[in-house]
C-alpha cells in the first residue's frame, strides 16, 4: 500500500514537482519516500512498508534499469508468481511483491495483468519502448487519477498530487455533480474535478509520445439467463465457495507486519474475521465502531463475535458530534461530495487501527455485491412480483418485509409502499429497473440545484448515461445479475471502495484487504444460479450455508442491517459545529453558485426542527454541505485551489 505520482513529457523542475506530489499524498505512505527521474518521465512514491520491509523501496527498477515501477497495493499471489518466474530463470534481488511485477512485465508485457491477483494501481516506465504503462486492479480497490497539460501527462494516487502540477486547478465538474446527486458517485473516468480523470477498474492505459490508449483487461461477466448453470448441486457449490474464500483470506494474510480485521457485527466481517483468526500467528486483533444511537449501533453483536473468536478487540465510539468534527477532513480525503456521512465513522476507525500500531486490516466489503446481500436486490424481486399483477392488493404487503429497520416504513400502507417502490408503473424491461426507485429518490436532491447549474446541465440525465454504459450482454442476464452488475461495476468502485474504503483507510495510512473481492471468488459467484444467492427473500444464502459452522447462529442467521450512520442530525441542534452554519449560510451558498440559497436555508431550518428527516432531505443536506466543504477545501473562496488541499 502506498501512494505515487508522476509524469510523462518534458517537465521543467521535475524533481521539485515530484517532491510536492509525493508530499501531498504522504499520508498514504508515511514510512519512506522515493523519486525516480529520467528524461521526460518521473515517478514519486510514498511507501507504507508491508511486504519486503527492508528491501522493497520504490520506485523500483529492474536489473537492467530499463523498467521502473511505482506501485500502490498488494499482489497477494506474489509468492506463487515468484516461484514460477524463478523456474523460468528470473533472479530476484528483493523479497517484495513489487519486483514480481517487474519480472512479470519483462516476461509477458502488459499481459502480466491477467495473472496478478491483487489490489493495485501502478505506473511502470518502460524506457526501451519509451512508454508509461498504467494499470488498476479488477474491482477498483486502488485509485489512479490522471490529467494532461498540453503534451505532458500527469498521474497520481489521489487528486491532491495532481493539484500540485502548475496549471492544474480545482474546478467542479457540473456533470459529475449531477451524477453524484443521482448515482451517489461520478461515473469513471469522470471525477468531481473538471479535466481530471480516473483510470477505470480493470483497465490498462499506455501513454506514449503523442498518444494515450486505454483498454479493459478484465470484465465482470454473468452467464446468459437461459444457459444451464454448471452449479446444480448446492452443497458442492457451498464447499467450493468455502475453499475459495479460505484461500482468498489466506493469501490476504500475507504481510511482514501483523494483519488485523474489522468486525462490524454483521455476517461478512464476522466470516472474514473467523477465517483470519485461525490463520493469524499470535492471535487476531479486531476493530469496530460503536454508535450512541441504538438505531445504528451493533456493539452487542461485535462483542459476541469477538468473544466467540477470542480476538483482542478494540472499538471507537462515534456520536453525532464526532461525525461533525471529522466531516471536513472526510471531504478532504474523499475528494468528492458525498450524500451520506457513512465514511466518517470509518475515518475514525482507521485512526483507531493506526493508534493500535497496525497497518493492515481485512474487511468484509464486497460480499453484498458478490453474493446479493443488498436490500435493493430483494426490493427489485418484490417489485417484479408486484409488477406482474399491478392491481393486486395483496402482493404489496411484501414490501413491509424489506426494511424492518426503518421505522418510518412500518407505518406506511401497502398502497403507499407500492407507489413508492414503483411497483405499478415501473417498466419491467427498463435496464435500470432494480435501481430506478433509488435513482429517482436520489435525483430528487437536485431540487436544490441553482438556476445557473440547471442551465449548465441543460437537461443532462445521469441515469441515462449510466444505462448507456452497460455491456451488450447485459440484456441477456438474469435480473438479479443485472442488479448485481450495477452495484459491483459502478457503486462499488465509485463510492464504497473509494469514499468508504481506500480514502478513509489511507487517510491514516491503513491498508484494507477484501477477501470477498478476490477475482477468482467474484468469477465463481457470478456463475452461481441466482437462487443460490437470493433464496426467496433470504440474502447471501449460499454464503451462509458455506460458513455456518464458523459463526454463532445469532450471527449466521442474522438479517442484514445495512451499515449506516446518523446523517443531517449530526450537523444541527445546539451543539452544531460552527462550520456548518457558515457553509450552509445564504451568502456562502450564493458564492458557490451551485445551489439555491433560499431553498438550502429552508432545508437547514427543516432538518434542525425535525431531526428525523427522510432520505431525500438527509441526502440533500449532506450532499450540499459536502459540496460546500469541497469548494472551500479545494478551490478556496476565490475559486483557486487552496494550498491546504
Amino acid at each position, binding site marked *: 500500500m502506498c501512494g505515487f505520482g508522476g509524469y510523462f513529457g518534458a517537465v521543467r523542475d521535475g524533481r521539485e514537482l515530484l517532491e510536492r506530489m509525493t508530499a501531498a499524498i504522504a499520508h498514504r505512505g508515511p514510512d519512506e519516500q522515493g523519486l525516480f527521474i529520467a528524461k521526460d518521465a518521473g515517478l514519486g512514491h510514498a511507501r507504507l512498508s508491508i511486504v519486503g520491509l527492508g528491501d522493497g523501496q520504490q520506485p523500483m527498477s529492474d536489473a537492467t534499469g530499463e523498467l521502473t515501477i511505482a506501485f500502490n497495493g498488494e499482489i497477494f499471489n506474489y509468492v506463487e508468481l515468484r516461484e514460477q518466474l524463478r523456474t523460468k530463470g528470473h533472479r530476484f534481488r528483493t523479497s517484495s511483491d513489487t519486483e514480481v511485477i517487474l519480472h512479470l512485465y519483462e516476461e509477458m508485457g502488459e499481459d502480466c495483468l491477467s495473472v496478478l491477483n491483487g489490489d493495485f494501481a501502478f505506473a511502470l516506465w518502460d524506457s526501451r519502448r519509451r512508454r508509461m504503462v498504467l494499470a488498476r486492479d479488477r474491482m477498483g480497490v486502488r485509485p489512479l487519477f490522471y490529467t494532461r497539460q498540453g503534451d505532458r501527462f500527469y498521474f497520481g494516487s489521489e487528486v491532491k498530487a495532481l493539484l500540485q502540477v502548475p496549471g492544474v486547478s480545482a474546478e467542479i465538474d457540473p456533470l459529475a455533480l449531477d451524477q453524484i446527486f443521482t448515482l451517489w458517485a461520478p461515473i469513471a473516468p469522470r471525477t468531481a474535478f473538471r479535466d481530471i480523470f480516473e483510470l477505470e477498474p480493470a483497465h490498462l492505459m499506455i501513454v506514449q509520445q503523442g498518444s494515450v490508449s486505454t483498454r479493459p483487461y478484465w470484465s465482470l461477466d454473468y452467464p446468459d439467463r437461459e444457459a444451464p448453470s454448471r452449479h446444480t448441486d448446492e452443497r458442492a457449490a457451498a464447499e467450493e465457495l468455502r475453499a475459495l474464500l479460505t484461500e482468498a483470506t489466506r493469501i490476504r494474510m500475507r504481510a511482514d507486519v501483523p494483519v488485523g480485521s474489522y468486525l462490524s457485527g454483521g455476517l461478512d466481517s464476522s466470516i472474514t474475521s473467523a477465517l483470519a483468526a485461525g490463520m493469524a500467528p499470535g492471535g487476531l486483533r479486531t476493530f469496530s465502531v460503536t454508535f450512541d444511537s441504538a438505531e445504528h449501533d451493533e456493539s452487542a453483536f461485535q462483542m459476541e463475535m469477538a468473544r466467540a473468536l477470542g480476538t483482542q478487540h478494540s472499538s471507537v465510539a462515534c456520536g453525532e458530534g464526532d461525525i461533525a468534527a471529522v466531516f471536513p477532513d472526510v471531504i478532504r480525503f474523499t475528494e468528492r461530495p458525498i450524500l451520506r456521512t457513512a465514511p466518517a465513522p470509518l475515518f475514525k476507525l482507521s485512526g483507531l487501527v493506526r493508534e493500535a500500531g497496525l497497518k493492515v486490516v481485512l474487511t468484509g466489503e464486497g460480499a453484498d455485491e458478490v453474493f446479493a446481500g443488498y436490500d435493493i436486490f430483494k426490493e427489485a424481486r418484490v417489485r417484479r412480483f408486484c409488477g406482474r399483477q399491478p392491481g393486486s392488493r395483496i402482493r404489496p404487503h411484501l414490501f413491509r418485509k424489506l426494511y424492518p429497520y426503518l421505522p*418510518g*416504513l412500518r*407505518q*406506511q*400502507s401497502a*398502497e*403507499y*409502499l407500492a*407507489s*413508492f417502490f414503483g411497483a405499478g*408503473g415501473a417498466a419491467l424491461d427498463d435496464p435500470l429497473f432494480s435501481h430506478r426507485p433509488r435513482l*429517482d*429518490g436520489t*435525483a*430528487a436532491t437536485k*431540487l*436544490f440545484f441553482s438556476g445557473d447549474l440547471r442551465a449548465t446541465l441543460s437537461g443532462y440525465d445521469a441515469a441515462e448515461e449510466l444505462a448507456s454504459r452497460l455491456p451488450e450482454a447485459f440484456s441477456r442476464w438474469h435480473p438479479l445479475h443485472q442488479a448485481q452488475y450495477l452495484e459491483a461495476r459502478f457503486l462499488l468502485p465509485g463510492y464504497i471502495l473509494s469514499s468508504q474504503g481506500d480514502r478513509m483507510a489511507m487517510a491514516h495510512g491503513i491498508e484494507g484487504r477484501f477477501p470477498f473481492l478476490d477475482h477468482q471468488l467474484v468469477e465463481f459467484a457470478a456463475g452461481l444460479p441466482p437462487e443460490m444467492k437470493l433464496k426467496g427473500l433470504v440474502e447471501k444464502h449460499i454464503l451462509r450455508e458455506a460458513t455456518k459452522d464458523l459463526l454463532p447462529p445469532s450471527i449466521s442467521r442474522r438479517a442484514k442491517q445495512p451499515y449506516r450512520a446518523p446523517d443531517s442530525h449530526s450537523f444541527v441542534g445546539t451543539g452544531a459545529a460552527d462550520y456548518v452554519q457558515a457553509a450552509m449560510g445564504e451568502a456562502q451558498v450564493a458564492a458557490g453558485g451551485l445551489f*439555491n440559497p*433560499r*431553498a*438550502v436555508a*429552508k*432545508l437547514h431550518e*427543516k432538518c434542525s426542527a*425535525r431531526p*428525523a*428527516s*427522510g*432520505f*431525500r*432531505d438527509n441526502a440533500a443536506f449532506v450532499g450540499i454541505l459536502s459540496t460546500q466543504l469541497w469548494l472551500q477545501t479545494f478551490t478556496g473562496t476565490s475559486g483557486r485551489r487552496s494550498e491546504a488541499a
Partner: protein
Amino acid sequence: MSDTIRDSVKAFVVENFLFGDTNHELSGTASLIENGVIDSTGVLELVAFIEDRYGITVADADIVPANLDSLDRISAFIASKVAAPVTA
C-alpha cells in the same frame, strides 16, 4: 372552505417539500409521488401537518394514495374529515 384548505395544503407542500421552489408546476391533480415531491417520510410529515393544522386524527386506514397523493385529494380528504361529526 375547500379553496382555503387547498391553498393551505399547497403552501405547506411548496414550503416543506419543494423548499420554496416555484419552478414546479403543481397542479391539483398531479401525483406527489410520481413527481418526486414526497417520499415515504414525507407522507408522515403530511399527516402530521394535517392533524396539527386541522385538529383531526388520521387513521392508518386513511393513509393511502387515494386520500393523499395530490393537492385535490388531500383537500377533499381534509374537507370530509372536518365536515364529519366528532365521535367520542
